C-alpha cells in the first residue's frame, strides 16, 4: 500500500492537496466568503461542462449562461411554487437543462460547429425575454426569491465537532454541498475523458472524417456531449440560485455566457484542472479588476482610472484575444508546456526530431 502511494503520479497528490484545501477553507474564512467560494465552484462546474464540449469534442457553446438559467429557474419554480425539497430539485434541474441541450444539439450538431455557436448565442440572447413572459410561473421581471436552506443536523454536528465553534451557517452548508457535487462531477468528467467515450470525443475533435471512418457514431456522441455539458450547467445554475437566494431574468445575461467562455479558455480547454482556475477567474475578475488596478500604486492614476472605467468587458475581450494568440491552452497549457520544457532540459535534449505526435494534454 505504501509502495502504491509512493508510485502514484504527482497528479494524484495535487488532487488530494486541492481537496484538503477546499474542505478546510470555510473554517478559516468568513461565512460570506464561503458563499463567494461556493459561486467559484459553481462556475467551475459549468466550465467543466464547457470543457467536455469544447475541449474534447471541438464544439463551441455560447449559451451556457442560458442553460444555467434553465437549471436555476427549474429549482426556483419547483421549490417556490411546488414546495419540492431543494435537494431533489438539483438533479431535476440538471436533467431539464440536459434535455434542452440534447434537443438543441440534435439539429445543430449534424452540421459545422459554427452552427452550434450561432444557435447557442441566439439562445443566450433570447432566453431572458423568454423567461419574462410566463410571469405567473417565473415571476416575470421580479424573479423568484428563495429561502436559504438550513444545514441538516448531521452536517452541523460534524462541523461543530471539528471546529468546536459556532454552528454551521446555511452559506457554509451550501458551500459544502456545492463542493461535494463539484467533486462528483469532476470525477465523472475525468472518467468520461479517460475511457472510451473520451477517446471517441477526442477523435472527433482531431479529425471528424477519420473518426467517422473508424466507426465512431459522430452525431450521437456530439449530441450526448452537448447534453452532458448542458446538464452540468443546469446543476450549476440550480446551485447558483440556491446560493444567492434569488433568480431573475437578468441574472444570466449574454455576458455571463461570454465570461464563462473566457474562464474556460484561461483555465485551459481540454484540461481537467482548468475549470477550477476558470471558475476562480470568472468569479473574481469583475470584482477584483477595479480594486486590483487602483491598488497598483505604480500605475499613474490616469492609466488606472481609465482601466477601471473601461470595465471588465475590455479586459475580457483583450484577454480572450491574447490568450488565443499566445497561449491557446490557457494557464494549464502554459504550465504543462513549461513542465515539459523543464523536464527535457534537465534530462538532456535526447529526443528531438523523432516525429512523434505530441501527447494529449491530460495524459501526461
Amino acid at each position: 500500500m505504501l509502495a502504491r502511494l509512493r508510485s502514484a503520479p504527482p497528479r494524484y497528490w495535487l488532487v488530494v492537496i486541492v481537496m484538503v484545501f477546499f474542505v478546510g477553507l470555510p473554517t478559516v474564512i468568513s461565512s460570506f466568503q464561503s458563499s463567494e467560494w461556493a459561486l467559484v465552484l459553481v462556475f467551475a462546474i459549468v466550465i467543466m461542462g464547457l470543457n467536455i464540449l469544447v475541449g474534447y469534442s471541438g464544439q463551441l457553446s455560447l449559451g451556457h449562461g442560458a442553460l444555467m438559467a434553465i437549471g436555476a429557474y427549474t429549482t426556483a419554480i419547483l421549490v417556490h411554487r411546488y414546495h419540492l425539497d431543494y435537494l431533489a430539485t438539483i438533479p431535476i434541474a440538471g436533467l431539464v437543462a440536459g434535455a434542452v441541450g440534447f434537443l438543441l444539439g440534435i439539429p445543430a450538431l449534424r452540421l459545422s460547429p459554427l452552427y452550434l455557436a450561432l444557435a447557442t448565442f441566439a439562445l443566450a440572447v433570447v432566453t431572458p425575454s423568454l423567461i419574462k413572459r410566463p410571469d405567473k410561473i417565473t415571476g416575470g421581471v421580479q424573479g423568484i426569491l428563495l429561502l436559504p436552506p438550513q444545514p441538516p443536523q448531521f452536517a452541523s454536528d460534524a462541523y461543530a465537532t471539528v471546529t468546536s465553534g459556532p454552528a454551521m451557517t446555511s452559506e457554509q452548508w451550501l458551500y459544502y454541498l456545492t463542493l461535494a457535487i463539484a467533486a462528483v462531477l469532476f470525477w465523472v468528467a475525468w472518467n468520461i475523458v479517460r475511457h472510451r467515450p473520451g477517446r471517441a470525443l477526442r477523435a472527433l475533435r482531431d479529425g471528424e472524417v477519420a473518426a467517422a471512418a473508424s466507426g465512431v457514431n459522430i452525431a450521437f456522441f456530439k449530441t450526448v456531449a452537448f447534453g452532458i455539458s448542458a446538464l452540468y450547467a443546469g446543476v450549476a445554475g440550480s446551485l447558483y440560485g440556491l446560493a444567492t437566494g434569488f433568480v431573475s431574468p437578468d441574472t444570466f445575461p449574454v455576458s455571463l455566457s461570454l465570461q464563462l467562455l473566457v474562464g474556460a479558455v484561461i483555465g485551459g480547454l481540454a484540461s481537467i484542472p482548468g475549470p477550477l482556475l476558470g471558475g476562480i477567474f470568472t468569479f473574481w475578475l469583475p470584482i477584483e479588476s477595479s480594486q486590483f488596478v487602483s491598488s497598483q500604486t505604480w500605475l499613474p492614476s490616469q492609466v488606472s482610472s481609465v482601466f477601471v472605467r473601461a470595465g471588465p468587458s475590455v479586459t475580457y475581450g483583450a484577454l480572450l484575444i491574447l490568450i488565443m494568440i499566445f497561449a491557446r491552452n490557457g494557464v494549464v497549457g502554459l504550465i504543462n508546456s513549461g513542465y515539459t520544457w523543464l523536464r527535457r532540459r534537465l534530462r538532456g535534449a535526447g529526443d528531438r526530431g523523432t516525429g512523434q505526435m505530441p501527447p494529449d494534454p491530460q495524459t501526461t
Partner: protein
Amino acid sequence: MQEFLQQVLSGIASGGIFASLALALVLIYNAMGLINFAQGEMAMFATFIAFLLLDRGVSYWIAFPLTLAVAFAGGILIQRIVIRPLERAPVLTLVIVTIGLATLINGVAGFVFGYVPRSFPSPFSVQTVNVFGAFTSYRDLGVIAVSAVVLVLIYLLLQRTTIGLAMRAAAHNPEASRLLGVRVSWMLALGWGLASAVGAVSGIMVAPIVLLEPNMMQTIIIYAFAAAVLGGIESPLGAVVGGVIVGVAVNLAGAYLVSGDLELAVALAIIVAVLVLKPNGLFGRPSVRRV
C-alpha cells in the same frame, strides 16, 4: 389588407438592414470559413464614428461614405493585427477571437461614448407616403433604397471586376490562387474591409430607429444570423433574400402573433427550423468536405 401591406413594407425595410449585416457575415464566411461574431459591434462602432462626424457639422451624405471608408480601413486593420497571426489556427480558435473582439469593441465603445442612448439622424423624413394604397414612411423607403444600392454595388464588385474575381478565388481555394499570382493574404484583408463597410451601412440605417448606444446591434446580429442561415451561409444572394424574409416574418409575427419582446424568439425559431429542415439554407450548396 392595407395594414398587412404596411407591415410587409416595414418588414422589407428592416429586412434591408438585416440583409446588409448578413451580407457582411457571408463575405467573411466565404473568405475564411468562420462566422465573425464581432460584425455587429464593428458596425456599431462605425456608426459612432458617423455620429462624431455629424456632430462636427459634416453633412450626412459626406459623413456616410467617409464612415464607410473608415470602417473599411478598420476591417483591414483588424484582419492584419488580430486575425492574420492565427492564419493556421483551427476555426474555433478564430471564432473565440471574434467573440473576444466583440467584447473588446463593446467595452471600448461604452468607455469612449458612454451608455446613454443618443438620437441619430436619418436623411429621410418620417413623413408617411402612400404606396399602392399602403402607408409607409420615406424613411423606410430610404432604407430599402440605400440597402439595395449597397447590395448591388457589392454584387458588381465581386462578380464583374478583376479584384472581385481575385477575392472570390482566394476565398474558394487559396493554394491554387497563390499559384496564379493572387495575393491571398491581402484579398482576405480586403474581404474584411468590405464586410466591415457593408456592416457599417446596416448600423447607420438602424441607428435612427433604435437609438445609438453600444448595445444596439446585439439583437440585430441575431436577426442577421437568422437571415444568413436561412439564405445559406455561403450565398450573398441568400443573405439578401434571407434578410427580407426574416424582416417581413418578424414584423408580421410582431404585429399579429406575439408581442414585441418575443420577436427575437422568432429569429431563434427560424434558426432552429432551418437547421432542422434545410441546413444549407435556401441558396446554400451542400458542402463536400475534402478528405
